[in-house]
């Protein structure tokens, strides 16, 4: 274990990086590149349907019905991607054997870890908002949202602790500590599942995650 840790490129880097050694360490330019690629991908999905929707009725008015379906696809496909991204904020199913005192104990610890402002939000939603170098993060038990500076764009990351028996708040605390220890390493280890406008993601989130997203947006704009 020690020799593998010694191979890590940056002092204080997450040890988990050795499990994704083929990935380049994330930095601001890599995040911007990912944002651009997601935008291009969305445009590439939408443009053919929009052209189809515009051209078909010109060829024959009866084809307008096909245009309606083309428009529907142009709307549904990006929405499906956003829904997939929002999935990282879905709380994992509660296991039958998991005790309530353990959950409360873990939530207490998480409350101690976050700052005074975030504590109440944390108690209410089970999510932690953390300001970082790349933007403001919303950390949940099975993933994190990164609200980019300015607050208009969000990246969704699927990342979790490999122990299904941990209380939900403990999972958040695990991710939060890893994020604080090495933000770039955290973004490298995690899998990017969506990058796009906050307004596209928001409708797919549950109310607690929406509230945390709004808080993170304010932090990202500050």
């Amino acid at each position, binding site marked *: *274990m*020690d020799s593998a*840790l010694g191979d890590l490129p940056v002092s*204080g*880097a*997450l*040890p*988990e990086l050795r*499990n*994704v050694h083929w990935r380049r360490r994330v930095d601001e330019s890599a995040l911007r590149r990912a944002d651009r690629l997601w935008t291009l991908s969305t445009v590439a999905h939408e443009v053919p349907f929009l052209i189809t929707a515009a051209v078909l009725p010109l060829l024959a008015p009866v084809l307008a019905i096909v245009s309606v379906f083309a428009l529907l696809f142009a709307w549904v496909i990006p929405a499906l991607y956003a829904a997939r991204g929002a999935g*990282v904020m879905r709380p994992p199913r509660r296991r039958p054997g998991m005790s309530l*005192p*353990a*959950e*409360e*104990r*873990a939530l*207490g*610890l998480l409350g101690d*870890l976050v*700052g005074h402002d975030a504590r109440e939000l944390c108690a209410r939603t089970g999510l932690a908002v953390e300001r970082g170098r790349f933007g403001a993060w919303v950390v949940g038990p*099975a*993933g994190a949202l990164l609200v980019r500076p300015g607050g208009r764009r969000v990246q969704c*990351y*699927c*990342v*979790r*602790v*490999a*122990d299904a*028996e*941990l*209380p939900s*708040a*403990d999972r958040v*605390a*695990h*991710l939060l*500590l*890893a994020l*604080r*220890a*090495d933000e770039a390493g*955290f973004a490298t*280890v*995690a*899998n990017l599942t969506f990058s796009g406008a906050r307004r596209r993601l928001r409708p797919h989130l549950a109310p607690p995650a929406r509230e945390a997203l709004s808080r993170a947006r304010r932090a990202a704009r500050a």
Partner: protein
Amino acid sequence: MSQLIRMDRTGHTVLARWSPDDLAGTEAARAALQAELERGYLAVASEPDGSATAVRDLPLEAELVFLRRPIAGG
């Protein structure tokens, strides 16, 4: 007094407490940390300002050292 805390299925467990001038407590904390690292836990020293550092040895001056499980992309 500093604490070594393991995040586990009970919520969390305090494994050791020490202060820099308490030799026995420090040794006990160091031994507990090494034992947990060998079990696959990872250690993070948390500072009051909200920053954290991944550590492999016991940082004597840290207030809180957490033991956490590895994370992975889902």
